[in-house]
């Protein structure tokens, strides 16, 4: 006998305590006093869109702990490792995030290291040389992977090489990076006024006080002005041939809008129906029915000034053409038929469950807080988001599909078996000019 289940109607997310420091840095505190670990994230508006030379933004972030006047790279790593602490870095087009993870009892010692690296990095030339050689090699390896290559070509096809959201570069561009370029980027973007901080885990008054003292040491700087982004240039079809590839990486999607658009949440639900979970339409069709692939996904991607739908899969090379056709068929089905009631219920419950999982544990709430601040909202957003998800109807989803998922503007990228899905031989590919400026 199947057990009954309970689905929460609403979720309440703790709101962080917000403290604003004199230098302009916001500190968001989520205290879990029973923990013995502390996690502090510094979120800088220093993503790749702000760089004027290729690879600058990531290189600056990755070389922060590679030498200051006080500590060499070796001394930094020796100390972090001795305290069993580590820092993680992450970068996207808009933001660079540096996160310290430490046992709370070593917070004073590890904060001192964090202060050195975020206030006074030197980007020593020998360390830059080592980093450059390693990254160049890694990039060559990554670009051999059909999935990595397809991801690069996909954002380029959506936005164009001249757009900061669409550009990618030859590995030899690393050679043009100098200490001066890095220093200039650091001075401009790694400032107290250009970042916010989120602390989670154990973060009582003692920890917060230490963190505030640390944040007060962040360099001041002139405000950063935002240049307007250029108009995106979309290329509907990009194919890269890999004769030897057993599988073809496929990326299909469409530029839509960022999170503040009134249709964003609805489109998130729709992309979940399409390919956001095991049992989704794309999984059921391409994997569980046809066995073309090990996995296929779709999601709405949110950037600060743009957003897009992305569908991603790797399929056996002989199935390339058919897989592309089936993906467009599933998109058409979303436009033509309302989503079934039971299917929509599953998706709503999945989204509820995903949120509950994120919010379980001290660091998930911190991640949500980071996202809220980036989006200019607060943690109340999660409750409103869930409310909107729960209220959504099949009619509304179909309306969204008709409005946003019509074939014009779609981009298809394949890396692998190319001629299998050349546009002239495949009537389901979107019928648009080769290069369209939107």
């Amino acid at each position, binding site marked *: 006998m199947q057990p009954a289940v309970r689905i*929460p109607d609403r979720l309440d997310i703790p709101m962080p305590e917000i403290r604003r420091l004199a230098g302009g840095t916001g500190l968001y505190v989520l205290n879990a006093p029973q923990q*013995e670990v502390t996690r502090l994230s510094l979120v800088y508006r220093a993503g790749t869109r702000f760089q004027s030379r290729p690879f600058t933004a990531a290189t600056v972030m990755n070389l922060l702990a590679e030498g200051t006047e006080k500590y060499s790279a070796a001394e930094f790593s020796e100390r972090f*490792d*001795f305290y069993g602490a580590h820092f993680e870095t992450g970068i996207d087009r808009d933001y660079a995030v540096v996160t310290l993870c430490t046992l709370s009892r070593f917070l004073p010692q590890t904060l001192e290291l964090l202060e050195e690296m975020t206030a006074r990095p030197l980007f020593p030339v020998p360390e830059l040389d080592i980093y450059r050689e390693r990254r160049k*090699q*890694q990039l060559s390896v990554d670009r051999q992977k059909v999935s990595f290559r397809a991801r690069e070509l996909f954002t380029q096809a959506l936005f164009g090489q001249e757009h900061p959201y669409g550009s990618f570069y030859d590995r030899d561009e690393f050679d043009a990076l100098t200490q001066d370029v890095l220093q200039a980027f650091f001075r401009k973007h790694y400032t107290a006024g250009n970042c916010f901080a989120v602390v989670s885990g154990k973060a009582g008054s003692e920890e917060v006080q230490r963190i505030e003292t640390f944040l007060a040491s962040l360099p001041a700087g002139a405000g950063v002005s935002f240049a307007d982004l250029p108009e995106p240039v979309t290329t509907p079809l990009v194919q890269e041939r890999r004769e030897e590839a057993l599988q073809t990486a496929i990326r299909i999607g469409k530029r839509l809008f960022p999170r503040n658009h009134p249709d964003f949440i609805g489109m998130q639900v729709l992309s979940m129906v399409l390919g956001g979970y095991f049992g989704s339409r794309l999984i059921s069709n391409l994997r569980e029915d046809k066995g073309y*692939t090990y996995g296929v996904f779709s999601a709405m991607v949110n950037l600060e000034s743009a957003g897009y739908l992305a569908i991603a899969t790797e399929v056996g090379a002989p199935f390339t053409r058919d897989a592309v056709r089936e993906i467009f068929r599933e998109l058409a089905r979303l436009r033509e038929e309302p989503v079934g009631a039971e299917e929509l*219920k599953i998706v709503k419950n999945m989204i509820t*469950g995903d949120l*509950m999982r994120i919010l379980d544990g001290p660091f998930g709430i911190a991640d949500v807080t980071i996202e809220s601040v980036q989006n200019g909202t607060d943690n109340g957003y999660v409750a409103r988001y869930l409310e909107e998800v729960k209220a959504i109807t099949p009619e509304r989803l179909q309306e969204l599909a008709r409005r946003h998922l019509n074939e014009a503007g779609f981009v298809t990228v394949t890396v692998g078996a190319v001629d299998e899905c050349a546009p002239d031989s495949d009537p389901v590919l979107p019928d648009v000019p080769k290069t369209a400026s939107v």
Partner: protein
Amino acid sequence: MIDYQRYVLKNGLAVLAHRDPSASMAAVNLLYKVGARNENPSRTGFAHLFEHLMFGGSEHVPDFDLPVQLACGENNAFTCNDYTDYYMTLPKDNVETAFWLESDRMRGLALNDRSLEVQRKVVVEEFSQRYLNQPYGDLWLLMRPLAYERHPYRWPTIGMTPDHVREASMEEVRAFYEKYYVPNNAILSVAADLEPERVFELAESWFGEIPAGKPVRDAIPSEPPQTSARRLEVRRPVPASAIVIAFHIVGRTDPRFYAFDVMSDLLSSGNSSRLYRRLVKEERLFSSVNAYVTGDMDPGLFVLTGHLLPETSVQEGERVLWQELERLQREPVPEAELEKVRNKYESGVIFGDLNVMNKAMNLGYYEMLGDAGTVNREIDLYRSVTGERIRTEALETFRPEKSSTLLYLREDEN
């Protein structure tokens, strides 16, 4: 520290329950003591293919994932050489759904030809995606049969070749299920804000009636001692040449295991570790280096790997890797360096224990090794490794005649 209670049902199913009052989600882990190690050499990759079939529905459940999703849950599984693990998280209030689903597919799996046919194709695509269509993807397909001559660790969980998966028959699938997917060959572990008594009650009512199977007693061929160095050189269209050197070590439950674990951390855990600092940063010979232990139940491997920078010759790369092993044999490890890796290890355990799923998985894993209680002694066992012990094990193990070396070279390498 993971407090837990243990209870064994009459049919042999071991149940472990850990209460975490801070968790709103429940983690349920079901481990079956069967993996690639139990496979027939002419049907490798079978345990993993079977794992896929476990999601095709059972007696009372036409689709496994659907009820999980309706209960706000999430689930998945993985297969390794020693075991197969099915895991799920769902809101605490809905935990009974996990018991219902897992007991139903342990009692009677709805196997059908169509599902087998599709999952064979899916697994062949998985083989391509992860092992064949990736730079360095086939490295362990080459390395395993070099390091092992007889033991089933000589093939990876995905199998020796996609052909074995393509040829799997329904008859074999049924026999495998009946032999290994029995309560006395499984471990159920739960981490949630639930009283252990409640967990045991649920286990009793959902799993209690499932009949025990015959005890599993597979005769796993043991690996004969290695007496001469083995080498294999291949050329591949990759941007950088790679070196892999492996040595046979002890099994996971041997007390000497911890010395190897510490040694691998000295060599490559963190940016201050020996290999990274000397070979990547100071001498600039490699773009990346790594050292690790496989941690298998039967005697496993101690592995060194490195990707060479373009100016480094393969001979030079091999020479400096050996030099670091010889240093472990020659020079006692300074106490401060030992303390560093111990702290790092301890911190890793504490960060890992923040997550209910990790805790449930760990309990199941250590129970499989023989005693769930070991999970709470790991830090002490790791800390008890002395510098002297390290030297002894290093001298015993890191010898040319006990090594297997794979040179995975870019096509234009000299």
